[in-house]
């Protein structure tokens, strides 16, 4: 992976694993350490390097997510994350080549979130009323009642769509609904979708990426929404990194696309393993 990215002009970087800020992401919990937090991904620090003019960069690093432990999850795991200039096309083409090198797979089939969801659930994820999505999630065993559109969509997609993805060739799911934009920019031609993608192989998510959001105000709005959701769920607020927000203002991050890939899962896929335990030598992290 290093050779692949280095040969394509990416500079390998290192950013701090221990920092002062927890992630504001509503569904991620940072591990507290030494008065601060271990990072859940190197995303914010790498974007500060991009703002500082680093050009294309990559990093292969350990990341930590509290409470995530299971067949395909570990509290401590390895992320490969890289960023290149421009919109998604170049990144997706490289992803095909990288997966071809490591898994021996043919180029991925690219499917929009909307077409996959519509085929599996019979409901349009962009236009269906929230009530309809909520009721459908309940009918498929959602515990309790989903809080909002995003929660219903996420649950239904994971139950009905994901298990069948990446059979034969990898699947790249594109154009996620706007409520699931995370830190992706909205599509230029349709504000109901975001330029976020995920890569699946044999029903397992391997990678998640964005055509990166640049607008500082929109970042603030999305972080505030995450913290409101955290408050509703009784989770502590997480204040975003002020230096990251400042870098978005000035000089700003260039138009770029980035992706985070689960290295442990890629190794599982390459070896045909069905559990992380089969490919990691140590499974001793507290909480795992």
């Amino acid at each position: 992976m290093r050779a692949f990215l280095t040969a394509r002009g990416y500079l390998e970087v290192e950013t701090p694993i221990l920092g002062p800020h927890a992630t504001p992401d509503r569904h991620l919990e940072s591990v507290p350490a030494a008065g601060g937090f271990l990072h859940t991904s190197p995303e914010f620090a790498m974007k500060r390097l991009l703002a500082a003019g680093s050009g294309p960069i990559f990093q292969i690093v350990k990341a930590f997510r509290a409470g995530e432990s299971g067949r395909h999850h570990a509290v401590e795991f390895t992320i490969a994350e890289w960023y290149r200039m421009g919109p998604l096309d170049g990144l997706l083409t490289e992803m095909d080549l990288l997966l071809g090198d490591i898994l021996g797979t043919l180029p991925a089939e690219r499917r929009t979130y909307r077409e996959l969801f519509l085929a599996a659930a019979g409901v349009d994820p962009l236009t269906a009323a929230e009530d309809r999505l909520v009721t459908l999630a309940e009918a498929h065993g959602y515990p309790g009642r989903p809080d909002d559109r995003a929660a219903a969509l996420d649950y239904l997609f994971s139950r009905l769509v994901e298990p069948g993805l990446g059979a034969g060739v990898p699947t790249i799911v594109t154009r996620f609904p706007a409520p699931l934009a995370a830190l992706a920019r909205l599509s230029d031609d349709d504000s109901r979708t975001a330029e976020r993608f995920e890569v699946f192989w044999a029903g397992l998510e391997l990678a998640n990426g964005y055509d990166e959001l640049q607008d500082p105000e929109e970042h603030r709005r999305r972080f505030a929404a995450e913290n409101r959701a955290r408050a509703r769920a009784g989770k502590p607020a997480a204040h975003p990194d002020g230096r990251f927000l400042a870098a978005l203002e000035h000089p700003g991050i260039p138009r770029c696309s980035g992706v985070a890939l689960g290295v442990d899962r890629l190794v599982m896929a390459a070896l045909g393993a069905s559990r992380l335990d089969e490919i990691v030598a140590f499974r001793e992290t507290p909480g795992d």
Partner: protein
Amino acid sequence: MANTYATNEFRSGLKVLLDSDPCVLLDCEFVKPGKGQAFTRIRYRNLKTGRVLDKTFKSGEKVEAADVLDTEMEFLYSDGGDWHFMDPNTYEQYSAAKSALGGHEKWLLQGMTCGVTLYNDAILLIHPPHFVDLKVVETEPGIRGDTATGGSKNATLETGAVVRVPLFIEVDETLRLDTRTGEYVSRVKN
């Protein structure tokens, strides 16, 4: 305050209360779609009904522990309505209604040691030994020389159970039976 288990403590074999019934977890899986919410999916058996079901929890949810204990007891007697057992360590006696026997009462012989599932210190289920040796009290006369053809006939055992046995089996012989299939296994030398 009842003992509870959070989803991160879920393990197969755990006994919990679901739908107000004691259940045992068979399989648990942590699932977290993309950047979405985390869930724990379980497969469990309702110990009362025997049904196997699936359920999804939000990670962090808690369920009440079920006071379920698997132990062994000696079968004492049946008074027609209830079946009576004794804990061989404490000599404490427990009675079980027919529903707890699940049709296994026909294998029980006085003094036999059985698996017992206790729920809130009352008998929930009886598990007879996988193999029991029981005497034949009634069957048609044996037909010598017909051991090879594999024919069969009914035999009534000392517990009242009626099973299919080979034609050469005689009254007063002791047979080994598989209680899971209800089938004859072999003769046992007296």
